[in-house]
């Protein structure tokens, strides 16, 4: 096991899958020069410009072409630079990729991966900062992955590339430089299997993507106060590990969901409602969720910070839930 950054782990996953399967190829703007964050650096030298393919600034064509190419038996990995730009290809993803298998009665599959980096990244403002994962979790036909660690980027991206479903793969821009241990070679993380980051008896915190690291900080602080948090990283929002979360909340009796995305109609609401439906009578405190207010993300740092779900905010919510505020 070696250490790697979140970015390098993704690059290694893609390279390994491309070596394993000649039908895997990547397409997007500026890939030949390494991609916006370096996720593709060096790959064109190994695989050539046909398989690490530069594309025109043409998001609908990039995604639409990937749909056609996937239906013809190849496995495209599509780069959208930012989740925000993927909105220019919404028809191709939601109406075409997600529906083709069903609509055509199982005659085809659309095995493509769309990489849509999400999240706040200092002063990128409203059109380069969104976390739109809940949108895709709402769409039948799509898989949604939101890895928080280099190991999970590698393991989930490899699974995504091998999957026959279209996968929306959301890396967090603030994590590109995060360094951690990454298993070598055949490391595959299945969809729908959450990771318990730390066990605890008092309250369950469910999170994903970069927010997981904020929750870790909060859980440490709470541990110092004698409150034991069980922290769960969902890793994929569809499918999501309902069983694991239910089991945890059954034990702790309390659930807080924390995510960076807007709270209103977010995936936190889905998790909260599910737990309330299944365990409502047995909960020791009402289910809580923390997310961004329903506003836009500003450029100036204090304004940007004002919408973040911070560790102190999580700490305060948990103290409140366990009656220690």
């Amino acid at each position, binding site marked *: 096991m070696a250490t790697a950054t979140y970015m390098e782990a993704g690059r290694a996953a893609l390279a390994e899958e491309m070596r394993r399967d000649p039908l895997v190829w990547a397409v997007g703007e500026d890939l030949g020069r390494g991609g916006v964050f370096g996720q593709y650096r060096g790959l064109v030298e190994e695989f050539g410009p046909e398989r690490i393919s530069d594309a025109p600034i043409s998001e609908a064509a990039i995604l639409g072409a990937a749909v056609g190419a996937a239906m*013809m038996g190849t496995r495209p990995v599509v780069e959208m630079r930012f989740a925000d730009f993927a909105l220019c290809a919404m028809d191709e993803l939601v109406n075409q990729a997600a529906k083709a298998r069903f609509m055509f009665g199982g005659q085809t599959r659309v095995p493509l991966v769309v990489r849509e980096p999400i999240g706040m990244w200092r002063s990128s403002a409203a059109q380069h900062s969104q976390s739109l994962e809940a949108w895709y979790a709402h769409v039948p036909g799509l898989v949604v992955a939101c890895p928080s660690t280099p190991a999970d980027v590698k393991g989930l991206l490899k699974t995504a590339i091998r999957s026959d479903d279209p996968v929306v793969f959301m890396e967090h821009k603030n994590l590109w430089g995060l360094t951690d241990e990454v298993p070598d070679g055949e490391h595959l993380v299945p*969809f729908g299997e959450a990771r318990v980051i730390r066990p605890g008896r008092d309250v369950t915190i469910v999170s994903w993507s970069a927010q997981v690291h904020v929750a870790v900080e909060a859980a440490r602080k709470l541990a110092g106060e004698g409150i034991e948090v069980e922290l769960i990283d969902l890793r994929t929002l569809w*499918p999501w590990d309902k069983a694991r979360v239910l089991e945890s909340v059954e034990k702790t009796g309390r659930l807080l969901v924390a995510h960076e995305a807007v709270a209103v109609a977010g995936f936190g609401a889905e998790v909260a409602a599910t737990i309330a439906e299944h365990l409502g009578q047995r909960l020791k405190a009402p289910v809580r969720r923390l997310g961004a207010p329903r506003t836009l993300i500003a450029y100036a740092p204090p304004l940007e910070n004002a919408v973040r779900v911070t560790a102190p905010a999580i700490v305060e919510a948990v103290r409140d839930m366990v009656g220690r505020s």
Partner: protein
Amino acid sequence: MTGPSPGDNLDIKRLRAHHRMMWRIRAFEEQALRGLDDKVVLGAIHPSIGQEAVAAGVTANLAPSDILLSTHRGHGHTLGKGADSTAMMCELLGRVGGNCGGKGGSMHIADFSVGMLGANGVVAANIVIAAGAAHAIKLKREPHVVCCLFGDGAINRGPFLEGLNWAAVFKLPVLFVCEDNGFAATTRTHTMTAGAGAGARARALGLPTFELDGNDVLAVDAATAEAVRAIRAGEGPRFLHARTYRLTGHTGADAATYRSADEVAARRRGEPIGRAAEILGAAGVLSEELAADARAAIEEMRAAYGKALAAPFPPAETAFTDVQDAGDPRREAF
């Protein structure tokens, strides 16, 4: 360039085959429209009555292993590509035995076994998908051609520009066919289209373009043959702009009151099946033989309709199948 002229050496056998195919398309749709009246064909049906020459002339030049993508008005293209009329009729009636198991209906009809990758309910969406199918063919170094048909309304959506640019930049084996019936739903397309239209736009993107009379099946056939030859030779995408006219409303439910009866009557005189019959007649094919083509087509589609009517609806559980591998919709409903 205009389409190559069919010339004097008329291939009667081939024109007769077009005549049969055009009749099959028309009979299929007339039967489907009766099904709409009978309330067993549901949803929207978009007939291509009057436009059959494009479907027949284009698809006659495609091999079974070639790929075709169509639009909401795709029955003719699908039949031309070789799909089975009974399976198609079952699909229109939402029955077991339909190409898509009753999940698609007319607007999403597809038959992957004959390379027909789907009709599409979103105007112009098929253009970028076709470019991608051709991209895969090029990556895999296969010899197939992709043919993408769309209406004149589609040229005002972004994927038209994006898909043509993509195909041209990557020099992909795609034949784009604009089936220009002059209308986008109930609007005359030219009133909503800046500039000189489809062919001019394609030429501006560097695609060699054929402008032709889409009601002349021989012209469509000849132009497609030349375009497909160039595409197979690795010369990149080609564009066909075929002018035609739909004799019915936009859908089976559209009385088309936005145009005069005189206009339609005038266009009926130039409709493609009659024109083909006239040439065949002049070349010595007996009118009984031509009538037999029509009768055989009508019989085929009546039988298809009967079989479809007798077929059961798919079991309700199939509403939950073929969604995706990850996350079973029955287990994960809430």
